């Protein structure tokens, strides 16, 4: 992996845009250094700037997209931390530490199968752009709970998209694990396909199993609660084959073989 070697910095940056993307909210931050440095799959620790103590801690947020000086976040307001971020208005200032963590390794050659579930699509937009730029074949399999979340699929440019919803209100009905094996068939003489995934734990577990069954490599971005984002607190661990692994500095993107899946 080629990410995670860039030193992280604490920035205060201004919200330049805020717009709804279906059930989610997209914020654009004026953050040139991060825009310049961040690698697909890396994240930021973000909170509203200022002395307010509730929410107390920043929340991990993937770098969702980059547009010249702007760094975009895509936010699913599931609790008080994400709700506070989603309510930030244009002109408000965010305190942001980043870029953090190890992103996706894009050095492979095979066709990329990008698998996203719900808000897990957030880091996959920048990834998809970067993969396409490298001339890799990209196919996206994006699953959502419902139509309102599925609006986010519209953000993905230029790649083939399989869209699924659990309630059937947009695209096909079902889970991403259903069409996935069909996307992994290796074409004669070509390098094996490779999975890049982000989504709920249950989805990533299914992805890991399918990747193992089909003998392809899968990189997954893991979601855990984090306090520090820089390796200090040991709060973000997930089980590896031998020891716990810190999601913030050893991840958030892991090769599925480097984790333990019960």
């Amino acid at each position, binding site marked *: 992996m080629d990410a995670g070697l860039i030193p992280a910095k*604490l920035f205060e940056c201004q919200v330049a845009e805020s717009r709804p993307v279906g059930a989610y909210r997209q914020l654009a931050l004026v953050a040139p250094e991060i825009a310049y440095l961040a690698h697909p799959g890396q994240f930021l620790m973000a909170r509203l700037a200022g002395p307010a103590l*509730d929410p*107390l*801690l920043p929340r991990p947020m993937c770098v969702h997209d980059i547009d010249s000086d702007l760094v975009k976040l895509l936010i699913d307001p599931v609790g008080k*931390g994400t709700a506070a971020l989603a309510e930030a208005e244009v002109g408000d200032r965010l305190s942001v530490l980043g870029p953090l963590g190890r992103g996706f390794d894009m050095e492979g050659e095979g066709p990329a199968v990008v698998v996203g579930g719900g808000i897990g699509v957030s880091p996959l937009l920048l990834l998809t752009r970067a993969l396409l730029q490298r001339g890799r074949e990209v196919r996206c399999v994006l699953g959502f709970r419902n139509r309102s979340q599925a609006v986010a699929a519209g953000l993905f440019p230029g790649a083939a998209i399989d869209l699924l919803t659990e309630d059937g209100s947009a695209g096909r009905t079902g889970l991403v694990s259903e069409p996935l094996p069909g996307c992994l068939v290796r074409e004669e003489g070509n390098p094996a396909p490779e999975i890049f995934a982000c989504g709920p734990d249950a989805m990533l577990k299914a992805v890991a199993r399918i990747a193992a069954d089909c003998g392809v490599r899968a990189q997954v971005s893991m979601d855990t609660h984090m306090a520090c984002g820089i390796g200090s607190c*040991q*709060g973000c*661990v997930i089980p590896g084959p031998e020891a716990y692994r810190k999601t913030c*500095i050893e991840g958030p993107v892991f090769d599925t073989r480097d984790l333990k899946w019960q």
Partner: protein
Amino acid sequence: MAVNLKTALGPLELDHPVINASGTFDVLEADTVLEEDLFARFPFAAYVPKTVTLAPRAGNAPPRLYETSAGLLNSIGLANRGIEAFIRDDLPRLALLPVPVIASVAGEATEDYGVCAAMLDGRDELAAIELNVSCPNVELHGRALGLDPAGTHRAVSLARESTSKFLIVKLTPNVTDIVEVAAAAVDAGADCVSLINTVHGMVLDPWSLKPVLGNVTGGLSGPAIKPVALRAVFLVSQAVTAPVIGMGGVTTAQDALEFLAAGASAVAMGTASFRDPLAVTGVVAGLAELMEERGIGSVAGLSGAAH
């Protein structure tokens, strides 16, 4: 007026009164991740690494963290690679820090406190040893020694016999009478007490209504517990002659000022470093300003002002 921020914990001279709380700042990791050169300019006045135990500990099952109202609940479970790896791998690197290093040790068995203290006694890299008496004790079926004066006394006595280093005992607030436990620690030979460790608590997942933490219960830290910590520092610092390191929710310069006024000779920041890993810098600068505004020239002149 020039404000003098220097303070002392017995023989330890500190450039200013703000250190880090054990388990909340990993300088070896942070130096790799952050742009700052922490070995050239270390913002805390002393460095306390994460608590180590005799044998390595994997720590508790995740999830290990949850934010509460103005607080953080954690159940890391003293995850560490063991005191040997600490001495072998970490100490030589920590020796390069421009500030005193204070090792934090805990025992799963009572005698571990003696064994660990002996292992660290000869290490010149260390200015002091902090005993964390909140480790689940195997002989007590997981109950911490620090939950009663007798257990604390036993652990501290063993360590005291094994080292001539400056000995700090870190107290848990989860007791009926923290003053009694502090007195026992000092009676057993502690040179200094630090307080408070986290407050017992629990959270449920808002949707499933099951305990969030893998370990079911955890320890609460952050601004929510500041009044609990301030009271403990106020009472303990009046009851024992040993200097006190105050902590629990210190987030702003005003908080640091208040802990010193309550009787601490130094304060530690924990959870606040998760909000901003370099928050300490602003706290130290702000503390000098607040002291100046109030005409307080030195930490000694401030410490205990609330008594």
